[in-house]
């Protein structure tokens, strides 16, 4: 079985394999080689490691130029520096011209930024990327899924954003479970009292909450939503129709991420009672990775409580 320390190592493994198969694959770094754990890639493929220095806007502009000349650049650096500092370059010069640039943002969520504090905790990236037309958005749940997501991204002709972590990620999936772009995945079906939608590196918390709820005779359908665009609307709609109540769990501001995605599908096609577990539109702070999640509204107990609440609403209590 493949063992990775985290999503960054999984990224490097995947891109190194891709590079062996496809000479168009290059890695663009904004002094992020070490942060991406990609030093081995640079050693193996020195002419395919493009280092622009601490200059994220330039990393995106250079990548647009590389892609226009037939290459497949992967930019890897901090999620917020890609999606916020270089937001316009991503939007206007990658997304709009549909260039084949892959954007890999580490420190996605507060779990991953943890002790660095707000400057390095990125909980708006998915909202920003969702607002841009024509970008595929992948939110793998662990290192195994990251590996497969990077491989899957290379098969897509066009811009892809992949959210990565910082090495704290818990393994949820088996190594050989594929990453299916554009599909939700039912992880556990205890019952249809509530649909529990989650994604990213807190999926393990949703798994644990679902197990605890089952012991209290509240039976959820636990669903991973690893692709935010293109969205599996029909799949989500079917789950909503079955469960008639939903809770979303995400390591992101509750504005603009998974909660909004499920809410959008629900209001459009199958209105249900909903609660959103995530960062409650506040700035977090430094701390241990697990404790910042617990402190800022994404604890296992928060998930359990949210499910119990919507269950009551559904039953009209």
């Amino acid at each position, binding site marked *: 079985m493949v063992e990775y320390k985290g999503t960054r190592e999984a990224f490097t493994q995947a891109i190194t394999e891709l590079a062996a198969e496809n000479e168009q694959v*290059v890695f663009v770094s904004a002094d992020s080689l070490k942060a991406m754990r990609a030093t081995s890639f640079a050693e193996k493929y020195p*002419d*395919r490691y*493009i*280092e*622009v*220095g601490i*200059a994220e*806007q*330039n990393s*995106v*502009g*250079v*990548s*647009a*130029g*590389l*892609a*226009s*000349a*037939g*290459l497949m*650049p992967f930019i890897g650096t901090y999620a917020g520096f890609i999606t916020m500092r270089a937001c*316009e*370059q991503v939007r*206007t*010069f990658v997304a*709009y*011209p*549909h260039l084949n640039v892959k954007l890999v943002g580490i420190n996605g969520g507060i779990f991953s930024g943890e002790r660095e504090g707000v400057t390095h905790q990125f909980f708006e990236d998915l909202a920003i990327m969702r607002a841009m037309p024509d970008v595929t958005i992948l939110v793998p749940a662990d290192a195994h899924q990251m590996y497969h997501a990077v491989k899957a991204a290379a098969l897509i002709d066009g811009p892809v954003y992949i959210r990565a972590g910082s090495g704290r990620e818990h393994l949820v999936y088996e190594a050989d479970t594929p990453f299916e772009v554009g599909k939700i995945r039912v992880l556990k079906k205890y019952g249809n009292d509530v649909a529990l939608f989650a994604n990213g590196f807190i999926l393990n918390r949703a798994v644990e909450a679902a197990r605890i709820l089952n012991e209290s005779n509240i039976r959820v359908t636990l669903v991973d939503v690893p692709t935010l665009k293109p969205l599996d609307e029909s799949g989500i709609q079917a789950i909503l129709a079955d469960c008639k109540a939903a809770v979303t769990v995400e390591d992101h501001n509750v504005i603009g991420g998974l909660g909004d995605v499920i809410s959008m599908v629900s209001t459009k096609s199958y209105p249900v009672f909903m609660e959103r577990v995530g960062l409650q539109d506040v700035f977090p702070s430094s701390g241990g990775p697990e404790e910042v999640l617990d402190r800022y509204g994404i604890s296992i107990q928060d998930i359990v409580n949210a499910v119990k609440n919507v269950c009551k609403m559904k039953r009209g209590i």
Partner: protein
Amino acid sequence: MNVENDIKKLQTISDHIRLDIMKMVYEAKDGHPGPAFSIADLITTLYFKEMKIDPQNPRWEDRDRFILSKGHACPALYSALARKGYFSMDELHGLRKLGSMLQGHPDMNKTPGIDITSGSLGNGLSMAVGMAIAAKYRKKSYYTYVAMGDGEIQEGLVWEAAMCASKYKLNNLIAFVDHNGWQSGGSIHDVSGLLPVLPKWQAFNWDCQVIDGHDFEQIIQAIAQAKKSTDKPSMIILKTIKGKGLSFMENDNSWHKRVPTAEQMEQAITVLGGE
């Protein structure tokens, strides 16, 4: 063809391009004639003298590339592309109109011959650097040309890209600054702390030249000189006049974005010669 004839020919083409610009802006009732006139002679020289291109095969991978980073000047580029045969001259009537291939700023997917989307200021050099690095990696001999305005090089990203180009010793990258001294809000001097321009590029370790941006012979010679660089990117600062070619437009910054009157159109036809 001797040099003198060559230059006469370029002058005629650039007159036609300037008249096209006037007609396009007049018809669209919108656009940036002053900035387009300023860069028209460079675009003429690149497309009708310097660049290795094939209008029948706009995405030919060995072609030279051109990025109009000051994308608002695109009527000049659209005219050049149409006159090279990338698309019909009739398309020029569509500038800025719904459904037209000619967007308000250059779009690589809508307009044949546009090498990359551009127009929000300060972004072109980065993309040019990417194209030039790609050429080195893929062992291609094409050149990447990029034209920036002196206003737009106030953007920080330009200098990120400038650093990167010298780090990678991109002697296959030839950049121009259209140094007409004006930007949207007024004179470069009044609006920004940019001046002087030349020592900044020298400090970023570029090969630099300063020439008259309306003198075809100087442009041709400067490009030839730039191609001799072995380990540096090249900067050619073009001393230009905003609105060059029509006396009522020259150095009048109200023409940054302005639509000519019918009388001004007649004057333009008289001065620039018509077809």
